């Protein structure tokens, strides 16, 4: 219930905000070459003369019945646009997130286990650097290195997973790496911190006293308890990634939700913006739900 309210809230904020921003949906819908008259006709056709509240009400009523309307740019239905774009973003986000987790979790564990030693310092430094590097800079460097000089990977474009998974991977890997850098660094930092906290706990000493090997103590007893704060960060990163990353999608020419929504914003394509925000909102809710569920496995105390 509250999640539904959240979605309505997010939609409403977006809707009114877009209308507050200078720029005329009718004008962009009519196109750059349109005449005054065409613009006016477009405005009529789209009902943009109506009160904003009426407009929003109309949108929300239709949205509830499952109709997200159609793009002001050419009339493609929003649900179709989103169903084409979201899988792309989803694939990219999941790949990036998995990469981040695969790199960050072992790194954090190694760092925490060797707290204060050189390995730890090194990992911490790399993690800080990961947060520090501008995303698009990294992306560009990868393109230069892997596409322009060595030509091992395509610099841009996209091929759907179900058509050819290998091809998909070739297209997705560089963007995924680019996107993964910052989340990996952040997850590593967070997990290292909570691991160190957990390793100071009495029950870790108990586990050692039980005769478990250091590896088991670390990977079973400590990791599971350090999982909650780490999951929070992972969830947060997931929601970022699922919203679609404009810059990375642009650099690599990936037709994802980010590119769709940024274009929609630039063109004041309100139905598409609303649709994209709704999807992003739902993604956030689902991720939060998953994170909550994971809390339950990590920490039985949560209900």
């Amino acid at each position, binding site marked *: 219930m509250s999640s539904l309210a959240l979605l309505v*809230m997010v939609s409403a904020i977006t809707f009114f905000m877009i209308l507050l921003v200078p720029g005329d949906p009718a004008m962009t819908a009519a196109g750059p070459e349109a005449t005054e008259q065409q613009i006016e006709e477009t405005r009529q056709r789209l009902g943009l003369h109506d009160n904003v509240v009426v407009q929003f009400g109309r949108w929300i009523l239709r949205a509830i019945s499952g109709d997200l309307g159609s793009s002001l740019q050419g009339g493609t239905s929003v649900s179709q646009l989103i169903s084409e774009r979201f899988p792309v973003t989803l694939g990219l986000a999941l790949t990036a997130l998995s990469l981040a987790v695969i790199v960050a979790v072992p790194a954090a564990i190694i760092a925490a286990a060797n707290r204060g030693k050189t390995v730890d310092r090194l990992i911490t430094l790399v993690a800080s650097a990961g947060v*520090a590097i*501008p995303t698009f800079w990294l992306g560009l460097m990868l393109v230069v290195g892997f596409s322009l000089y060595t030509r091992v990977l395509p610099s841009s474009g996209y091929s759907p997973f179900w058509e050819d998974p290998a091809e998909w991977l070739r297209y997705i890997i560089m963007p995924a790496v680019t996107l993964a850098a910052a989340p990996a660094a952040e997850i590593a930092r967070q997990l290292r911190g909570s691991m160190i906290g957990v390793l100071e706990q*009495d029950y870790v000493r108990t586990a050692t006293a039980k005769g478990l090997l250091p590896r088991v103590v670390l990977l079973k007893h400590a990791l599971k308890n350090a999982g909650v704060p780490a999951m929070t960060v992972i969830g947060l990163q997931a929601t970022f990634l699922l919203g679609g990353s404009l810059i990375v999608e642009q650099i690599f020419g990936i037709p994802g939700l980010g590119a769709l929504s940024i274009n929609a914003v630039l063109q004041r394509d309100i139905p598409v913006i609303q649709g994209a925000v709704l999807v992003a909102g739902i993604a956030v809710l689902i991720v939060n739900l998953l994170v909550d569920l994971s809390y339950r496995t990590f920490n039985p105390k949560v209900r």
Partner: protein
Amino acid sequence: MVATRRALEQGDIPQASGSTARTKPWTRFRSRFLKQKAGVVAAAFLLLVVIVAAIGPLVAPLDPNEQNLGAILKYPSAEHLLGTDDLGRDVFSRLLFGTRVSLLAAVQATAIGVALGLPLGLIAGYLGGRTDRVIMFVNDAVMSMPGLLLAIAIVGMLGPGLTNAMVAIGIIFAPHILRIVRGSVLEVKEETYIEASRSIGTPLSRIIFQHVLPNVRSPLIVGVSLMAGRAMLNEASLSFLGMGAQYPEASWGAMLGRAFPYVDRAPFLIVFPGITIAVVVLAFNVAGDALRDSLGRETRTNS
């Protein structure tokens, strides 16, 4: 290792009762900070950056805004230490000038993020209940909106320009600060010393300022240092979309953004600002970590 720590603290009694030695907070902070070599290096570097920001215009070898369309994209030379940009301007001088803009941008965004997030986070966390739910509802709504969309909308409403862009970034950051603060307030709130202070009859405002605030300091510092770095990176992204620094101002992000099309012809245009941003952001993070560790709770565990 609660028990051991306590025992350890008791071992310090004689030191405490030595009547002359006064422990000044600043002295202890300094001694702890100086122990963290990486932090010291980072702080020294940041100090240097601040100095450059202050006196940069005086030491810049050339006028950073002087265009020379006859000599664009020139590789580094004796005349132009770091080459020239796409309008023939001296990259080194622009980098020096950009320091102030970029730093200011980071400070503005962070300040706004903290100004919004900190009080609301304190209130939400400490009061809990309905207030908390309302604040968190709005917070989650803002958080689940794609950041860039928000930024565009806010900049659209305020008009283009670096300050406005930073206001936008600040607003986008605020929910994150809010969450960090609220999280640690929830933790601190349960501490007995807060209850003890309440039992004395301390007013709410005083409890928040005197007890809660100093104890959420550590996570806040980390959050802020991360954010200051993030702000620089986001400024770069927004400049990339034309919403950041405006002509003739130079910001590192803007320099980086506009160097995009010349990757293969003038890679140095990307390399220098990219590295500058990365190093400064890294310095923020490292110094922030060191600061946290030096300001941390006054316990013995980390000495």
